[in-house]
C-alpha cells in the first residue's frame, strides 16, 4: 500500500533546514491518497505536548458516536482550578457555560488548556488511549492531563518560575520533555492518525468533518502554515509547545485535490521562548516534504 518516494535529497534538505534554524527535528509526511511517504527519524519517540489534543478530539467524537455523550451537552466552566494557559478559557476570569463541541473548538483553535482538561475530564484519559490503540498508533500514549503536564514544568522549574527556563540546566531536568514520562507519540503515528481522520476511517463521516473543521480553524500562522503562503492551499493543524519544544501536525490540501499529512516535532538548542526561525522551519520542512511528494 505505501511506498517510499525516491527523492533522496528531500530528507537531506530538511535536515539542513533544521540545522540552519538551530533545531533538532523529526518528521514524517504522507500522501493521504497514494500512501507515498518520506521522513526524517520518523519513528523516534517524541513528546506531543498540545498535539495530543488531537487524540483527545478524536476520542471525544468516538464517544459521541457511541452515544456515551452528546456534543451539544453543556459544561459548567468554573474559574476555579482551571488549567493555566495564555489563551481561551485558561486566560478568562469568570464562570461560563459551553457545549462540549465549543470547548473542542477552543482547544483546537487556540490550544486552550482549560478547555482541553474539561473535555478530558468528561472523555477520560483511558478513552483517549483506547482510541489511539484502536487506530494502531502503538507508540502513542497519554499519561497525564494538560494541567498536570504544566504543573510538572512549574515544579521542575522551581521558585524562579519562567525566568529559570532560560537555564539549560533547568530545561534538562524537565520531566515534561522526557517522552518516557510525558504524553508521547512518533511522527509516523501522527500522520497515520491524520490520514485516518481525512479518509473517514477514524470516525463516522459527520464526526470526521467536525474534526477537520476545527483543525482548519486553528489561528496560528507561524509554523506549518508559514511554509505554504498560497491563498488556494488549506492548512489544518494542531501545534504543541513547551520550553525548547515546538511541534505541529496537520494536513495540507492543494486545489488539485492533493492531500498531505505532515507531522513535525522539534527541539531548539536555544532556551529562549521567542524564536521565529524555529517556528518557521516547521513550515519549511513541511513545504520541502510536500513538494517532494507532489513532484515524485
Amino acid at each position, binding site marked *: 500500500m505505501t511506498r517510499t518516494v525516491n527523492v533522496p535529497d528531500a530528507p537531506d534538505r530538511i535536515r539542513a533546514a533544521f540545522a540552519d534554524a538551530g533545531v533538532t527535528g523529526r518528521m514524517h509526511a504522507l500522501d493521504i491518497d497514494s500512501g507515498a511517504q518520506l521522513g526524517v527519524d520518523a519513528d523516534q519517540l517524541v513528546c506531543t505536548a498540545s498535539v495530543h489534543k488531537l487524540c483527545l478530539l478524536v476520542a471525544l467524537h468516538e464517544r459521541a458516536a457511541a452515544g456515551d455523550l452528546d456534543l451539544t451537552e453543556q459544561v459548567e466552566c468554573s474559574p476555579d482550578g482551571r488549567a493555566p494557559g495564555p489563551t481561551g478559557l485558561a486566560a478568562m476570569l469568570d464562570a461560563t457555560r459551553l457545549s462540549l463541541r465549543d470547548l473542542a473548538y477552543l482547544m483546537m483553535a487556540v490550544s486552550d488548556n482549560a478547555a482541553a482538561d474539561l473535555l478530558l475530564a468528561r472523555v477520560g484519559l483511558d478513552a483517549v488511549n483506547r482510541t489511539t490503540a484502536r487506530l494502531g498508533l502503538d507508540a502513542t500514549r497519554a499519561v497525564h492531563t494538560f494541567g498536570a503536564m504544566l504543573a510538572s514544568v*512549574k515544579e521542575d522549574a522551581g521558585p524562579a518560575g*519562567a525566568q529559570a527556563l532560560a*537555564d539549560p*540546566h533547568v530545561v534538562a531536568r524537565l520531566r515534561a520533555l522526557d517522552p518516557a514520562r510525558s504524553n508521547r507519540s512518533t511522527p509516523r503515528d501522527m500522520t497515520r492518525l491524520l490520514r485516518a481522520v481525512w479518509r473517514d476511517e477514524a470516525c463516522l463521516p459527520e464526526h470526521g468533518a467536525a474534526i477537520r473543521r476545527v483543525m482548519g480553524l486553528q489561528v496560528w500562522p507561524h509554523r506549518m502554515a508559514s511554509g505554504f503562503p498560497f491563498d488556494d492551499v488549506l492548512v489544518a493543524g494542531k501545534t504543541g509547545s513547551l520550553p525548547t519544544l515546538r511541534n505541529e501536525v496537520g494536513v495540507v490540501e492543494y486545489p488539485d485535490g492533493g492531500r498531505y499529512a505532515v507531522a513535525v516535532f522539534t*527541539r531548539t538548542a536555544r532556551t529562549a521562548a521567542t524564536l521565529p526561525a524555529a517556528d518557521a522551519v516547521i513550515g519549511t520542512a513541511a513545504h520541502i516534504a510536500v513538494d517532494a511528494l507532489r513532484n515524485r
Partner: protein
Amino acid sequence: MDLIRHLECFVAVAEESHFGRAAARLGMAQPPLSQRIQRLERELEVRLFDRTSRQVALTKAGRLLLPEARELLARSESLRAAARRIRDGESGLLRAGLPPDIAGDTVAALLTGFQDRRSGVELELHELSTTDQLARFAAHELDVGLIHHPCDVTGLELGPVLRRELGVLLPRHAEAAGLTEVPLSALAGSDLILFPRAGAPVLYDDLLTTCARGGYTPPAVRHGQGVSFVRGLVLSVGAVAFGPRDAQAADPDADLVWRPLAGAPLAWRHSVAWPRGHGDTAVRAFADAATHALRTTADARPDTPTRPMRLRPASEYWL
C-alpha cells in the same frame, strides 16, 4: 523489603496519578503494584496517596516524601552506573570530551583536580566539538564532556552552566582601544572576524543579534577561526574579533589589545553534560573538577538567567 523497588513504585504512581498507567510504565500488573504501595505505607507508617476519587492524589506526607524518594533513586542509579563501568572491565577509565577552545591552564587544572578527587580512575581526554560530543553520547562512546550552549540537551543531564565573558580584540591604534571597557556601539564601522556560521549556526546568529541590539552591526563579517589567522586579519584590515580573556596569547602582540565589553553582553556558556541516568561518582568528579578549573583559570562564573521571560500567547504554556 526492597526499599528501592518500592520507592520506584511510589514515584511512578505519584507521577502518573493513576495505578493502571504506573503499572504499565513499570511493566507490572496493577494488583502487585497496589500491594507494594500498601506495604511501603505500612513500613513508613504514613499514608502516601488518597484513593478516594478515580484519580490517585498524593497526600501531604506523600508530597513531602516525593523529593526524598527521587533523590534516593538517583543515588541508586549512580551506584548502578558505577557498577556497570566496573563490570564492563573499564573500571579505571572515564572517556571525557573537551572543546578545542579550552586553554591549556584550564586543562591542566582539570586534570589535577580530577586526580585529587578520583585517584583510581584514568581519564581519557578527547578534543571534540559540542556536536561531536552529542553524537558520541548517543553512540555510548563518551561518558562525560564539557559542552557549549546553546545545544539540544535532550536525553542529557547537566552540571551548572558557567559563562566565560567575551572581550574584544582590536588594533592598538583603534579609537575604542583607548577605553577600559568597550561598549558594543563603539565598534560601529569596524568589520568583524567571526568563526564560519556552519560550525555553530545558533551561536553565530545569537552573537550577531546581540551585537545589533547593542548598536553594532558590522559592515562586513569575515570568517576565520585559528588564533594566528584571526590576529593577522584584525591587524591587516583593522577589523575586530571577540574572544575570552583566557584565550589571549600570554605574550600579547604589541599591535593588538584585548578589552572587556561594557556590561558583558557576550559570553561563551559551558556546562558539563552526561547521558541521563549515567551520572556515577567518576562523572560527578569530572563535573566538579571541570567546573572548578573553569572558575579558577578562565574566570568563568555561574550563569543564572537574570532577564525576565515574557511569555507570549503563542508559547502555549504558562507558569
